[in-house]
């Protein structure tokens, strides 16, 4: 038993954090919202590739880092903290390991940063990051297919988080990658896990902004953050957040071990982090007051990404239902009959 990241894991996460502090400050996320975003995105993608991050889960023999889901959690916390406006999770956690497993020739350029890959398995019909991606992993039933987006005419979809560059999933068949339900499930769980880890990082960032703001901002002659109501609001955010972290870590451990509990453990992680994300956004906006409610201030960049990720890869209702199943809970009954009308 040693339930803490290893020094190696911390070191790698530290390197990613350092890179992203420089390479993905709020201005870069903000730029991704506008038409000027493409260049910044390309540069950033290349930098992530240079760090080896894009091949993190690709075996070393295939030119990757050979890491597991457990190693990935601290990395995706950093990706979340910086709100990287690129499909890092989709490429690193979902697409690249699948391509590697199937010996796809697309793997090399993807890991090298020459291609950007996104993925959508929920069946929402909306492909995030479509506008900045070259390849897309989509699902048809339990089959996963790889679509080449080059030259495809995309129908953009406006999303709350303007950096998502979303579009309707194009009606291009693509090439079948796998139809193995176990492999599809694993890809789905990896996507959900990566989303959960990002939600942790995004919440950290929102909380840091709120703490910095309320320490400085004065009203009634004192810092806003010295008011008990604000203190307790933000203490609750930290509480919420800190208890999500080990649940996300456990999900990674189970998934990496191929444990049968992985499905329930990932569901626990995604359910808790998605719930937490909603509360964190609301509380940190509230702690900021009016400035938290503008697009000129940075907070919204992180808030909106967290809303997007909370709704993606299964929302709270789905993942809580998965946990309920794993507990063997009977279905809920609808107790609307008056006592003598009971229909049991």
């Amino acid at each position, binding site marked *: 038993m040693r339930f803490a990241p290893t020094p190696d894991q911390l070191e790698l996460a530290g390197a990613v954090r350092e890179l992203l502090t420089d390479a993905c400050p709020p201005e870069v996320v903000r730029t991704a919202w506008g038409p000027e975003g493409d260049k910044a995105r390309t540069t950033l993608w290349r930098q992530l590739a240079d760090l080896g991050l894009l091949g993190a889960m690709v075996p070393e023999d295939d030119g990757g880092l050979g890491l597991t889901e457990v190693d990935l959690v601290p990395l995706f916390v950093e990706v979340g903290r910086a709100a990287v406006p690129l499909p890092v999770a989709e490429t690193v956690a979902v697409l690249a390991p699948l391509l590697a497993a199937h010996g796809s020739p697309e793997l090399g350029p993807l890991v090298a940063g020459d291609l950007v890959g996104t993925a959508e398995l929920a069946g929402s019909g*909306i492909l995030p990051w479509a506008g900045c991606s070259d390849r897309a992993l989509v699902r048809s039933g339990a089959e996963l297919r790889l679509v080449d987006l080059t030259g495809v005419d995309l129908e953009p979809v406006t*999303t709350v988080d303007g950096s998502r560059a979303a579009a309707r999933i194009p009606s291009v068949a693509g090439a079948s990658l796998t139809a193995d339900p176990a492999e599809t499930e694993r890809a789905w769980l990896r996507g959900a896990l990566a989303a959960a880890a990002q939600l942790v990082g995004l919440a950290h960032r929102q909380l840091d902004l709120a703490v910095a703001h309320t320490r400085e901002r004065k009203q009634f002659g004192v810092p806003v953050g010295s008011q008990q109501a604000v203190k307790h609001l933000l203490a609750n955010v930290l509480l919420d957040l800190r208890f999500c972290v080990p649940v996300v870590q456990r999900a990674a451990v189970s998934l990496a071990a191929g444990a049968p509990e992985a499905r329930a453990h990932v569901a626990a992680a995604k359910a808790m982090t998605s719930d937490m994300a909603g509360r964190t956004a609301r509380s940190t906006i509230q702690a900021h007051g009016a400035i938290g409610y*503008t697009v000129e201030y940075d907070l*919204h960049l992180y808030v909106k990404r967290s809303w997007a990720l909370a*709704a993606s890869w299964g929302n709270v209702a789905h993942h809580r239902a998965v946990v309920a199943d794993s507990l063997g809970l009977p279905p809920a009954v609808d107790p609307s009959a008056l006592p003598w009308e009971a229909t049991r």
Partner: protein
Amino acid sequence: MDLTWSPAEEAFRAEARAWLEANVPRGLPSGDTREGFAAHLEWERKLFADRWAVVSWPERYGGRDASLWEWLIFEEEYYRAGAPQRVTQNGIFLLAPTVFEFGTPEQQDEILPKMAAAEQLWGQGWSEPGAGSDLAAISSRADKIDGGWRINGQKTWTTRGAFCTHLFGLFRTDPEASRHAGLTYLLVPLDTPGVTVRGFGRLDGDEGFAEVFFDDVVVPDSAVLGGVGQGWSVAMATTGSERGLTLRSPGRFLAAAERLRALAVERAGSLSASARDGVVDAHLRAEAYQLFTLAQVTDLVEGRKAGAESSLNKLYWSELDIALHETALQLLGPDAEVDGPWSRGHMFSLSGPIYAGTNEIQRSIVAERLLGLPRK
């Protein structure tokens, strides 16, 4: 206890419903963009033309002398018909009651008809960069000059300020007096030389706010509403106005709860248990808010003042609005991140606990004034 409407009130409702069904514009863009605002103005002018813009005002200002009950009925029908939030609301609901109470006859005749007709569009100039919740910290100043006042300073968070023609606000006219004292309520045309307005984006991206800069802006003595140095009490008196126009309409939340119900029926295939509970709660709370308002209006009509009770309203509707929209996003599943009425409504709802006095301040008011807990 009587929860029935009189035949006259039912007739009023029928007339309003028929007119709204025939006239409410469909698919209006957001009123917080420049193009959208223009479309909304057109709607406001249509409302005015048929005397639906300010139903509770005297006929001479374009109203119908409607009772508070009729006003509530109109609001219910207005939102039920899917009509948009009023871009004129800061004038009609915040400034107008003050003008009715404190304005000179000249000010009333000058301001109210143009406001009703949406010819003058009023923005609120209360907050400043250093004075948000702590409104008494206002530092924008108006210095006395011959025949008027010279204004210097900055206001911010002026809703739809970039599209307004006029601003009402509090300014420090006695720099020696501190905090609440020495403030004066002034009315400022935004085309006065020296005024600069800069719009900026709300959470939903629309240019819904503005900063307003004052650089030696000169206004006449007639710009003072309610007396020099009386600004604080004039501004505060509005919140308890017996005309009740500052009540937040239950109609808006009833309509939203009904749209949520329809969404749940439409998305029956993904109606989770917690979302279903959320729909029920939204409905219960919207009705509770309506009933609470009916009781308040009864009190107002019978001469019992509301006072600090309005803090309860603010807390209730703002939290209801957020919960209602969070349930909608749950129902939408992966579609929740798509830009649309629900996601926009959700973002808008998050401003509820912040503007017009944060909910933290409202809770302290409730505790101190309604429960009698010690200030410190």
